[in-house]
């Protein structure tokens, strides 16, 4: 067994649906979950902005459809579109600092775990002995922030079982070493086929 919070998050005090009870913020990190690199907040914001650049035109396009095709009152439609654009922008920019407090991972003697989600919370556990292969991925935005993500794959499914985003390449390397510690076998000369 390993150290675990005596009471799971949220079990002792029921909170409202919005879960914006500030008493819960960052509790995860006090319970022994390693937070990702703080730069990840900026990275998520930039990713959100990039996503918003695609979302906003779709909203505006929907507005045109409502006004021209459905002949809804333009003032209402454009007010709604503007409000939605502002709301999505606010979410994309504001949410990362909150979700940072609910994101973490822990490497234990026998397993690796990750936690995420502000409203819909989830934790993924993979025993070390089940790891089939690991991926370290750094996209263009992540590279700009000097970060990368680390994924663990297990048998029988195509997707990653655990993904830890926004950690430094050194940390990813440390995790990789810890999970796949086997020494490189000596090179054996291949015999020619047939």
């Amino acid at each position: 067994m390993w150290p675990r919070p005596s009471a799971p998050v949220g079990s002792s005090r029921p909170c409202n649906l919005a879960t914006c009870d500030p008493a819960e913020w960052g509790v995860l990190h006090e319970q022994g979950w390693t937070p990702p690199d703080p730069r990840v907040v900026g990275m998520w914001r930039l990713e959100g902005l990039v996503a918003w650049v695609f979302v906003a035109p779709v909203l505006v396009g929907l507005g045109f459809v409502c006004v021209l095709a459905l002949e809804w009152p333009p003032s209402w439609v454009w007010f709604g579109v503007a409000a939605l654009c502002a709301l999505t922008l606010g979410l994309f920019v504001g949410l990362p600092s909150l979700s940072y407090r609910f994101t973490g991972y822990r490497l234990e003697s026998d397993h690796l775990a990750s936690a995420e989600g502000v409203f819909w919370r989830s934790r993924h556990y993979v025993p070390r002995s089940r790891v089939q292969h690991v991926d370290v991925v750094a996209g263009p935005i992540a590279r700009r922030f000097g970060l990368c993500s680390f994924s663990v794959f297990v048998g029988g499914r195509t997707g990653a079982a655990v993904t830890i985003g926004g950690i430094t390449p050194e940390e990813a390397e440390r995790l990789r070493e810890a999970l796949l510690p086997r020494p490189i076998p000596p090179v054996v000369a291949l015999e020619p086929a047939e």
Partner: protein
Amino acid sequence: MRRLHPLTILLEMAKAVQRLIVVLLFFAVATLMGGERDNTEVVLAGLGLFVGVSSALRYISFRFTIDAGELVVQEGIITRKRRTIPLDRIQNVRLTRTLFHRILGLVDVQIETAAGSGVEASLSALAAAEGEVVKAALLGQALDQPAERQESGRLLLKLTPRELFLAGASENRALPLLFGLMSLFGVVGASGAMRRATEAAVATPWIAAGVALALLLAGWVWGIVRTLVTFGDFQLRLEGGRLTRRYGLLSQQESVIRVQRVQDVRFEQTWLQRRLGVGSLKVETAASVQEKAELTGSLLTPLVESGRAPDLVRLVLPSIESLDFDWRPLGKGAPMRQFRASLLGVLLAGLVVWRFGWGWGLGAAAAFVLVQAVLSPLRVRASGWADLGHVVAWRQGLMRRVVTLVPCAKIQSVKWVQSPLQRKLNLATLVVSTAGSTAGVSATMLDLDVVEAEVLLDALTSRSAAWAGPDGV
């Protein structure tokens, strides 16, 4: 290196014809229409030549051998491919004989490993006798040793036509079929046909009821016939840690799985089967991803008496004495959570009937709420979980009751999820994954008590870590 049977060429051509059936039909129609400058014959001859030559080339280039604990398959003319599969990594060997195979005296041998989805090597086709030899070799015998058609091993189960009839009659597929037809009808005739049908049904209720009954009956009979044909002559044998299923009246299947490779076990009972005291058993191996899409799925047996089921389960999970565990109930808030989650459906029900007028919409919504208020607690009471040490068990389903047994030694990962509503009601969901299921999910344990979920999560994670096999699968 060995070759396939020469008649493979014929088989391949038949398969090609099957694949090109649409094109061929198109040409047939074009010929019947009769254009003046008609060169259908030329096109068809070209097509036939192409299919024949490519089939022959495939036969010529395909070689395989089993040697030194490895299956080596070599194929391709332009791009040579050589695939090596270590025999101890084979999860599943399957022999298939369609009616066409049986006429030609052939058999398909398919080999599956835990890698990815689908068949890793397909030896299509061999002579029936050679198929037996190859199967034995894949399972560890020397290739040059003759293998008699295996009737050896302990016969565990043999289903008589009467039992198969019972299996087909009690798996209530008729209802889904009826709903399927009705929804299809609804989609096709969305522009008023549905309304007209409703009006007609209201005007002549006896005829409408008769039609519905006839459809139900047809679906029921279809289910019985299909079960009889698919699983005719069903046999389950155990030999040296391997389970062999053989079944099929027209298209014969034989599949061999290693007991130690089984990832999870399911005992399923429809409400009718519960009353009759029977059920069906399923086992998943890490290779059965593609097989699941097929009709037979990962069925170990389509019918077994409830009393005998633990005996079969014990072959795979030795510690199981009976399937009546000391079930732990879900969390206290579970009925409320499931009721409130279902309220989303009210919106849909209301919207669907909205077109018929507000009265209908409100009525449908109210009826839905009432039904859910009654069903939610019943559904929760039907669910439960049990921690048996080596195995974790999960039961669910009001009508179709499914008991899932997952050995801790096969658990690949565990996921803990909590929605805002679950958090408010002190609930959490555990998702247990093994290598043996399409989406990687063996059991989704919905709405456990949050503290119990935490304890179970701890136990499963540490046991899974401690009991992993050498290759992790």
